[in-house]
């Protein structure tokens, strides 16, 4: 009551610290740990050339003499390679940092692609209704009956069948992956956005915009879109972990990123061949990195969903 005279508005940080989200964040130690791990991995991946002790892609620096060196705390190890090296003499730690970079890039790109596609189709279906709605949502229904990994595999196979001869694996793998993962994830966004669009469409501000004769596309983008994007953020966070896992799975299955520029999944696949000959570190360390990354993002996504969902309060 008495703060009315207070003229200076509190700064951004001060306002953030006053929110429910911040309160729930500070109270929850596990979420704080997950956020910390996520940020560390993000920064490590972003500044990989500065952080990584070696450049695993610099063929000149690789030496077969250094291949299959065990981690630093084991016998016959080399202090230069903290987590050991693989069969080509690449430093595992550096390969993980660079691999996380590729995994995250694929993850972000495919989530962005899925979100843009899903939001556009959801807006169109919800706003236009009628036959457009029916066609889009029936496609969504059919797609939803199948697990996304199966759809990603099918798209991956078809795309490589169509464009197979024209581009090399190295150049196209990234885009093929983003396309297949993105196309297998769009349904959730479309359904969510469609249902909120159906509600927003009948509100007065949309009717007013329609009355003054704005173009439907402008109404959708400028008026409806900002009001339906809230839940999309939560889906995107949870999807990021799922996209990273899907990328790793596809790469592990041998239809993803090739081994010249390995992602986390590719590293695990390479190492899998050495599991029986005793060189367990090649596959186990990238595996742990992938698991920790997915778990941390999942925890953040779950927390975000709980905090932003007013029904659970």
């Amino acid at each position: 009551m008495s703060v009315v005279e207070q003229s200076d508005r509190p700064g951004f940080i001060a306002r953030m610290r006053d929110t429910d989200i911040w309160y729930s964040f500070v109270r929850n130690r596990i979420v704080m740990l997950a956020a910390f791990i996520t940020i560390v991995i993000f920064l490590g991946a972003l500044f990989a050339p500065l952080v990584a002790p070696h450049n695993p892609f610099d063929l000149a620096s690789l030496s077969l003499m250094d291949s299959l060196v065990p981690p630093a705390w084991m016998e016959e190890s080399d202090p230069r390679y903290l987590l050991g090296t693989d069969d080509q003499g690449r430093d595992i730690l550096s390969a993980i940092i660079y691999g996380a970079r590729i995994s995250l890039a694929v993850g972000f790109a495919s989530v962005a692609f899925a979100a843009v596609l899903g939001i556009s189709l959801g807006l169109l279906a919800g706003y236009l209704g009628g036959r457009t709605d029916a066609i889009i949502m029936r496609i969504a229904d059919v797609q939803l009956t199948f697990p996304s990994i199966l759809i990603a595999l099918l798209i991956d196979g078809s795309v490589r069948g169509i464009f197979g001869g024209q581009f090399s694996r190295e150049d196209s793998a990234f885009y093929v992956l983003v396309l297949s993962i993105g196309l297998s994830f769009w349904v959730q966004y479309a359904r969510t956005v469609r249902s909120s669009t159906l509600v927003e469409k009948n509100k007065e501000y949309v009717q007013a915009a329609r009355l003054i004769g704005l173009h439907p596309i402008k109404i959708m983008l400028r008026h409806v879109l900002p009001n339906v994007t809230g839940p999309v953020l939560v889906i995107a966070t949870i999807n990021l972990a799922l996209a990273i896992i899907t990328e790793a799975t596809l790469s592990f299955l041998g239809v993803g990123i090739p081994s010249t520029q390995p992602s986390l999944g590719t590293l695990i696949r390479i190492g899998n061949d050495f599991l029986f000959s005793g060189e367990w570190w090649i596959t186990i360390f990238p595996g742990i990195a992938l698991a920790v990354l997915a778990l941390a993002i999942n925890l953040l996504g779950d927390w975000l969903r709980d905090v932003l969902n007013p029904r659970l309060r």
Partner: protein
Amino acid sequence: MLAFTIRRLIQSIGVMLVVSLIAFVMFRFVGDPVDQMVGLETTIEEREILREQLGLNDATPVQFLRFVGNAIQGDFGVSYQFKRPVATILGERMPATLELAFVSAILALVAGIPMGVYTALRRESVLSKLFLMISLIGVSLPTFLIGILFIFLFAVVFQILPSFGRGEIVDLGWWRTGLLTSSGLKALILPSITLALFQMTLIMRLVRSEMLEVLRTDYIKFCQARGLRSRSVNFGHALKNTLVPVITIAGLQIGSLIAFAIITETVFQWPGMGLLFLQAVQNVDIPIMAAYLLLIAFLFVMINMAVDMLYVVVDPRIRIGGGEE
């Protein structure tokens, strides 16, 4: 009830038609079927003759109808890799996948439901927290990673279980089973647990949240007030009412079990349909991909229908509501 069944049947046929259209487009337009069948030295005239024989010069709708007609009769063409009929290859591989999926489904139910009930009844116990933590890990860890960890632990470090293949197979004529030999059963342990883990955590979490909801209702409190034994309250009254969503999810998950078997089969080199499909994707063997897609779609549609029918049997409320519709 009859109207409901017929409506679901028409929907299912619609879904199957859409999927077969996709499969047909893949089959016909991804890569040239003729190029895949003939060698380099085949002349253009010979290719034209083959094209005519295969009916590839007919109008597209005619080709689609023929494709659907052949598919219904179980003819999916010839695999580009193996040069054998796709249906035969799939038939050989199917028992392995079905056995794996079946055992995993049983495992997931037998372990998941009691764990869910336990974590709901004893929310504060250490064991409950342990179960919940395992379930979080089970949801976050990719299937292939769990498989590799299992192989590392049980096949490499302890060397007590085989890490690949099906073990000894008994040929029953129409079904080649690994369930009758000890090596076959041993080979089944790791893959089935790997495949079951995700479904198990899903079922456990579902049973737990449903139980918590039901335990809060008035009729459970009334049962307790009447002095019924807690076992009969918890299992006879509470658990029974959680079963509808559990049946739905468990039913739908059988389909995903078969699809996720692709990953498990690859990790453990299990000679099933999933491994076959993956090799087809790697080598762009479109007939196998198309046939597998249709087969999985058919399974999903059948399971969906069965689940809907089961609802009506389990939950009398739906029976009455369905009649009014």
